[in-house]
């Protein structure tokens, strides 16, 4: 058996195809999920991919959180379903209050696409348990509104509970608080990450293959039961 990983396509989702490829390369089965449908088709995990859902109108992710499929996803995530939000998906998870904090415009006010080093700080999540604590991996960051912000009390709490999953390891690319690149919910099943692990699965088309473990981690976990 293998894991069935649902990938939600909102109007304006762009990296859904890339997320599906990453799931397939990691040995899972990618199941397309449509924003306007109800029901999660019995998937074992869900990815909210990158892109510009609803054109980023109003605020990134602010409209997507009201999509019909979110009505089913939010309680499923609360009940422990593994969920990974990448880039715009991270923004949607924050807007849906499945993750703490917000993502704001890059401090230099420009979109950037660049490769960078990310340090995995928490390997307790379903999505990062294949990594070594402190392992530095090369990913691509590509976003205009990628600055992770939260109030000081929240940042303090995140630190104490170990909810910071990854930080930028070679400089500050966008003005994120405490160089935060990825966070998780308290339970550890929901993770949001700004850089793109799905674009680091093959040196032919990305900066290497160090992002693939995000997908193999969750798939192995599901298969192991």
């Amino acid at each position, binding site marked *: 058996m293998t894991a069935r990983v649902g990938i939600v396509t909102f*109007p*304006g989702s*762009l*990296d859904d*195809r*890339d997320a599906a*490829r990453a799931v397939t390369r990691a040995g899972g089965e990618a199941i397309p999920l449509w924003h*306007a449908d109800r029901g999660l088709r019995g998937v074992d995990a869900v990815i909210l991919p*990158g*892109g*510009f859902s*609803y*054109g*980023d*109108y109003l605020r990134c992710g602010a409209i997507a959180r009201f999509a019909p499929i979110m009505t089913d996803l939010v309680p499923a995530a609360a009940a422990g379903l593994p969920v990974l939000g990448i880039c715009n998906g991270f923004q949607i998870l924050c807007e849906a209050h499945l993750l703490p904090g917000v993502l704001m415009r890059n401090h230099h006010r*420009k*979109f*950037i*696409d*660049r490769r960078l080093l990310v340090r995995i700080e928490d390997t307790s999540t379903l999505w990062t348990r294949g990594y070594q604590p402190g392992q530095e991996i090369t990913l*691509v960051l*590509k976003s*205009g509104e990628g600055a992770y912000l939260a109030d000081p009390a929240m940042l303090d709490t995140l630190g104490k509970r170990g909810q910071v999953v990854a930080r930028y390891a070679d400089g500050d690319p966008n003005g994120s608080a405490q160089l935060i690149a990825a966070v998780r919910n308290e339970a550890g099943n929901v993770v949001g990450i700004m850089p*793109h692990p*799905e*674009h680091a699965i093959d040196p*032919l*088309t*990305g900066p290497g293959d160090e992002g693939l473990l995000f997908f193999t981690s969750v798939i192995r976990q599901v298969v192991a039961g």
Partner: protein
Amino acid sequence: MSAAALDTVAAAAAADRPQPYAELGLTGEEYQRVRELLGRRPTDCELAIYSVMWSEHCSYKSSRVYLRQFAEKAPATTALLAGMGQNAGVVDIGQGYAVTFKIESHNHPSYVEPFQGAATGVGGIVRDILAMGARPVAVMDALRFGPAGAPDTARVLPGVVAGISFYGNCLGLPNIGGELGFDPCYAGNPLVNALCVGVMRHADLQAAAAAGEGNQVILFGSRTGPDGIGGASVLASASFEGGEAAKRPSVQVGDPFMEKLLVECCLELGAAGLLAGLGDLGAAGLSCATAEMAAAAGTGMRIRLDAVPLRDPALGPAEILMSESQERMMAIAAPADVAAFLAICARWDVPATVIGEVTGTGRLQISWHGELVVDIAPQTAADGPVYRRPAARPASQDALAADGPDRLPRPSSGPELRATLLDLLASPGLADKTWVTQQYDRHVRGDTVLAMPEDAGAIRIDEQTGLGVALATDGNGRYGWLDPYLGAQLALAEAYRNVAATGARPVAVTDCLNFGSPEDPAVMWQFAEAVRGLADGCQFLGIPVTGGNVSFYNQTQDVAIHPTPVVGVLGVLDDVRRRVPIGFAAPGGQVVLLGTTAAEFGGSAWAQVAHGHLGGRPPSADLAAERAAASLLAAAAGAGLLAAAPVLSDGGLAIALAECCLAGRTGCRVELPGDPFTLLFSESAARLVVAVAPGAEATFAALCRRHAVPATVLGETGGDSLEVAGQFAVPLAELAGIHQRVLPALFG
């Protein structure tokens, strides 16, 4: 155009009156020609249609007599599934796949309103590709601006880059390369040329024709607004005379989110077999789509203009016909398919409306609330006038050719050569372009195998077989100014070489011909020479021009830009895993110079940067040598003999070596067998450097002999500096610092 009372066909037949044809961009003779065609005065709406359709931008009226050469001299090929005259050319690349690509200008709008002008330039070219039935898969941009330090460049460049970034990123298309250049001739007339490439299966090819009497005409996408009214005629077909801010309403406003929905919606409609015809609404909007699609099929159309969904209910019928509102497409569908068609549009939240039907009358008839306001033969609008404008080689061309670079002082000592290299690297046109390119998403779709700073971009098309395409755009206005015939051939040769250097097999060409006013005989001569040079070059190299765009009137008052044909070449990579990058990524690679170096400095980067000089002759174009080098590279790449292959272009060997050391973060040590200045900075064409894969040296040398390509071993990759034996060495950290700080220091 304010029409107090509705002007109908009946009213036009009954009563003559003065009409504002000149304000709409028509000449007196053209207006008379319209009257003769109709046998009466045109209605307000008909006048609107003819004014935009007969504009230089839409009708190619000054260029068409020359562009015919691209067909007449086209090499015999079976690869072309659709050629010139379509929205974009379509090339068979094997395995059942076809690729369509085209480059187009959005120069004037990008000067008037840089952000929206450049953004909608991307949107427009993407819809051209979509209209062929293809999925757009990548974009590129060839950009040229005035002096980098000029205040107006600081207004225009960041806006253009942000506009391309905004639109292309939101649309989900990787930006895989292009050009960035600066020259005083582009101050006030920046060039923003956008290229898009799309992929389809052979069976997916769509026709932009309104076939089938009784079929329904469906307008879908954004609602029509007052933006871009007369963009093709008022903005794109006239020189700037000052007061450009007043033209801002002629620039369209882009919504890339709607375009993304439109792309997915169109592809789903095509896959469901619901499209009997498909066209995009670009320049001249609804006027163009209706007239051209009816003309292409030899049919007629009956359109209810009042059915067009509007963003601004105050728009009148003539304004609706001229509007260039973005993100709109027009489809022809069988009556039985309309319900399924509208359902797919609804699924994608794309507004869609039946606005008319195809008829067998041969007339384009348009009504407004039941009254007939247009009744014309569509072909008369689609064809437009054809001019053979006066062309004359300016007398100043002789003095320009005589003013060669020979008298310019040259560096000779090691420290002087070193300083010259660093000066060139720090010039904005040769500096590191990351400030621009990192604002573009190059990774989306996960198929990008080469992108900037590579010499060419490349995209994987089939994940199983590794089939892919490589693309490069090149142009050099300085060469074009010295000799427009050679300038066009050198642009072609460079793009061809850049594509071949990846290991791809060049197969087809698209061009964006940027020139001054066709009403100036000197400009018309430049244009005629450039087209002749490009057509001859394509014929020799065996790769056809499949489509493109002419942009005239790139001039302010009587000062024209340098003739700047920008040439895009498409090549096929049988296996993208074999593609060759430019960077020296490992030590121990033998560095070999391919081709022959002569002392050719006319129009060179050295003459410009060191002396502000432009005169003499450009480098000669040796297309036989280009072809030999290309076949050598394809064979060597296919056999896995090459670790890197940068081409030599602006700045010559010195700049090429610096760029590939920086790209791969590995130094090199070379010895120069001859005059160091000439070998380092000459811009002789048909040359590349390669780093041979360790162990393959003898095989590669034999291959060079077999292809009759002169090969000179210069040295070896390795170390952390660029060293020219006996002359100078520059640590990579110093090179990188100089190269990388230029654009951030200028643009923030």
